[in-house]
């Protein structure tokens, strides 16, 4: 399947004079988890709101399953960060109503059981705990039998067991080919699940890549330096079997087994070319460090 499940191109979302999303572009593929991370107010939820049809874009183009947002609503599952529940409704009757809007919904009872909510519960959603309300929202997202699933802060308020269950559900859906796009502040979830990560800050995407590209792998060395170094020259200076990439402007990753000789070759090359390499590191960093670096948190 060559076409991306989600394509966001130069998206701008403004609320009056405030620009929440500023020319953000990224894609999300089928059978992959795409995570959007960033600090509060970075524009993550506004981006998802446009993708799910809740909010209209100020400018830019968003294509969901090849069409404008909302056109494929019967194939798109959504779990909103806030709202999305009728306070006076019981979970089962809410899902039973929603099921009438979809041509081939899943069984509402099974969806609730899947997320650990008793379908026979007489408790209205306003009397459920925050974590239980999250689970009802997830059940509503699963009701669609989605081809693409948007999850906005899905693990907020969940206890460890429910969180583990949610992560397992996400992994299983990815294995079935579902495209999953999620935002979260909980970075261990991203490190565990995400195939692709986009870092947002002040409405813009400031870094993108796989976990390995962003924070390195155990078999890699990273350093910072001036942008756009001559990578072919650096490759020539390294033993065979190593790869070099500029993962972000001014961030470099040398992939291969870290050895004293390789490390010496990198520093020698930097010295020969007048490059002041900083933050030279062997092995992985963390998304938390990346966020701190990229958005100054």
């Amino acid at each position, binding site marked *: 399947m060559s076409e991306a499940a989600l394509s966001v191109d130069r998206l701008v979302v403004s609320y009056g004079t405030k620009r929440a999303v500023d020319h953000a572009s990224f894609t999300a593929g089928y059978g992959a988890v795409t995570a959007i991370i960033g600090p509060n107010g970075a524009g993550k939820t506004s981006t998802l709101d446009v993708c799910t049809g809740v909010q209209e874009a100020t400018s830019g183009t968003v294509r969901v399953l090849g069409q404008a947002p909302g056109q494929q609503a019967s194939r798109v599952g959504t779990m*909103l960060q*806030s709202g999305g529940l009728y306070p006076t409704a019981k979970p089962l009757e809410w899902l039973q109503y929603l099921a009438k*809007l979809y041509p081939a919904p899943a069984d509402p009872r099974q969806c609730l059981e899947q997320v650990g909510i008793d379908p026979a519960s007489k408790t209205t959603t306003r009397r459920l705990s925050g974590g239980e309300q999250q689970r009802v929202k997830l059940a509503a997202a699963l009701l669609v039998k989605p*081809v693409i699933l948007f999850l906005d802060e899905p693990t907020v308020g969940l206890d460890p067991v429910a969180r583990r269950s949610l992560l397992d559900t996400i992994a299983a859906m990815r294995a079935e080919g579902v495209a999953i796009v999620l935002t979260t502040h909980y970075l261990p979830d991203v490190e565990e699940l995400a195939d692709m990560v986009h870092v947002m800050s002040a409405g813009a995407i400031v870094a993108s890549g796989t976990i390995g590209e962003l924070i390195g792998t155990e078999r890699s060395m990273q350093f910072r330096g001036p942008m756009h170094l001559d990578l072919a020259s650096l490759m020539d200076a390294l033993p065979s079997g190593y790869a070099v990439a500029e993962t972000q402007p001014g961030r470099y990753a040398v992939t291969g087994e870290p050895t004293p000789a390789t490390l010496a070759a990198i520093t020698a090359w930097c010295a020969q070319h007048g490059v002041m390499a900083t933050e030279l590191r062997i092995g992985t960093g963390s998304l938390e460090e990346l966020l701190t670096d990229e958005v100054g948190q």
Partner: protein
Amino acid sequence: MSKYRADSEKVSPRVMIWAHALWEMKLLLRNGEQLLLMIIIPVGLLLALSMHHVQSLKPGQSSVDAAYPVVVSVSIIATCFTSLAIATGFERRAGALTFLATTPLSRARLIAGKILATAMIAALAIFIVSIIAVFLGWRASVWTLAGFGIAALAAIAFGAWALALSGAMRAEGVLAVSNAVFLVLIMFGGVIIPASSLPGGQALQLLPSAALASGLRATLDSHGTPGWAPLILAAWGLTGFLVARRTFKWQ
């Protein structure tokens, strides 16, 4: 071309509107305060106006004849305008509607479903009021059906404007404005006092409240033709629906 073309097995709009109307009715009937506004107040008003001669009567006209069209008008405006606007305003504030924006239920179908639900509640209230009116001496005629047609048109018109208001304003603003509009329309919009008896009566006839009340007086009390009332109400309904569809925000 996308592998996932538009789904050919979509649920029909009619089914979605009906499903949403039933959903809204279920929630409305569960809300005691709403029921008070929608049913008990009109019933109480009918009893009060019928038993106390507060209105000037024409020769041969009984108190209940005069009161019945007024009470039906009040019931429709209270249910389909004020109550619907306030409920929707607070649903938006609570974010209850936001998820529906992600479903195949479109803005237009949500609006249609909400109007249908409140129209059915209003019909229930009018049914109860009518039974009590019959016990109090009011008699139906062949024109009563025309009166119920006017009531249905008014339910659509007031419902559409309720959603045009509540879909664009903050909940607190909706609460204040919808109550103020209700009082102004009841007092000075041709409901309690016929528009023809008020200063500027000709212009007031164009208000939906005046069209509703005059149409109901003509059909339910005088047992005659409703005049321009259906056309005026249809125009208000159409413009209200178009405005609501354009301005309604899910959150």
